[in-house]
């Protein structure tokens, strides 16, 4: 009798833990999608009414962050360089891009683990220096680098987040050409 009750309770606990862990596992996989097969940039789908929306919302809210409204901003994240290696604060990276057709954007470097306060470094469209042709290069490095420079605030692996203001009317804004991220050295 006791054995039977124990096994039934175990089955229920397994069900609950399985549902909970599958939800946590699905948040990143369902809430965001790769923008193309050749790119490691993921776009978070925060549009209302989509099946991926609850997962994308959960990604932000569980970290204590307010998700941007998709009608105002598009948000992308990337945890790997163009070679497919995870970003590490011990390496130097070069980010090349052409200016987005948006009014404002920011590029932030956040730890892969749950970020603490003050643990992000940010460059925005207001801060960067551009070339005459509108292209720009940024460096991610723990040590100072001339030009546009972002310093990871903590050691270990990190992710890049790109927030682009979206006026909802331009294809170029909703499908921007994403930056390339190359590892320069470690």
């Amino acid at each position: 009798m006791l054995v039977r009750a124990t096994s039934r309770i175990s089955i229920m606990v397994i069900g609950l833990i399985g549902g909970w862990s599958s939800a946590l596992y699905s948040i990143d996989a369902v809430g965001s999608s790769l923008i193309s097969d050749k790119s490691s940039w993921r776009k978070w789908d925060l549009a209302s009414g989509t099946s991926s929306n609850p997962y994308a919302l959960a990604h932000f809210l569980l970290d204590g962050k307010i998700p941007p409204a998709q009608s105002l901003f598009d948000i992308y994240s990337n945890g790997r360089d163009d070679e497919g290696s995870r970003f590490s604060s011990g390496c130097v990276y070069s980010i090349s891009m052409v200016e987005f057709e948006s009014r404002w954007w920011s590029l932030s470097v956040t730890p892969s683990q749950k970020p603490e306060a003050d643990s992000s470094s940010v460059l925005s469209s207001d801060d960067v220096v551009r070339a005459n042709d509108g292209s720009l290069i940024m460096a991610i490095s723990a040590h100072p680098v001339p030009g546009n420079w972002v310093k990871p605030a903590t050691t270990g692996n990190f992710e890049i987040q790109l927030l682009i203001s979206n006026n909802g009317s331009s294809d170029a804004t909703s499908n921007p050409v994403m930056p390339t991220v190359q590892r320069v050295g470690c």
Partner: protein
Amino acid sequence: MWRNVYWTLVAAVLAIMAHIGTLLFAPGYAFEQELDLLAKDIPTNKFFVLPQEAQLKIFPEYPAGAVFGMCRFDLSSGDVSLEANLPDTLWTLTVYTSAGKSIYTANDEQSGIDRFELKLMRAPSLLELFSSKADEDLITNSGWRVSSSDTRGFALFWVPSFDLAMRANLVETISKSSCAKISS
């Protein structure tokens, strides 16, 4: 045999409930706890500029010089009026439910003005909808009026600043905004 099938189904139903619960309720609850902690001294229906420490934690994607103004509203005892006073520059306004879902957005280009009043109202229940006469129907979510099915939520202004030195001026301008329950 059938007993095993039954308990497997029970486990599957519990797994689905836990999956849905984790996605739909846990994030909103966790976020509200976080917000309570970060803005614990700020009463509801009152406009405030988010302290920089809280801002860096909630909005790590934005530069430290940006300014966020917030009103945590509670519509359970009546409508709330949000009077915005914003600088003549890029800004956005987003109204969220307490679960973090955005229900209304606007920016400086769409609005064309930097000073306006936004009325936050509780959405009528199904019963109220059926019992109201046709000519009593209100046009909601249009113009400067937002109706929310969730009685609690928050309205959020964001204004970027080109450098930290500009922040104090922006804070001064945005601080003239207000948020208050409309007395009936």
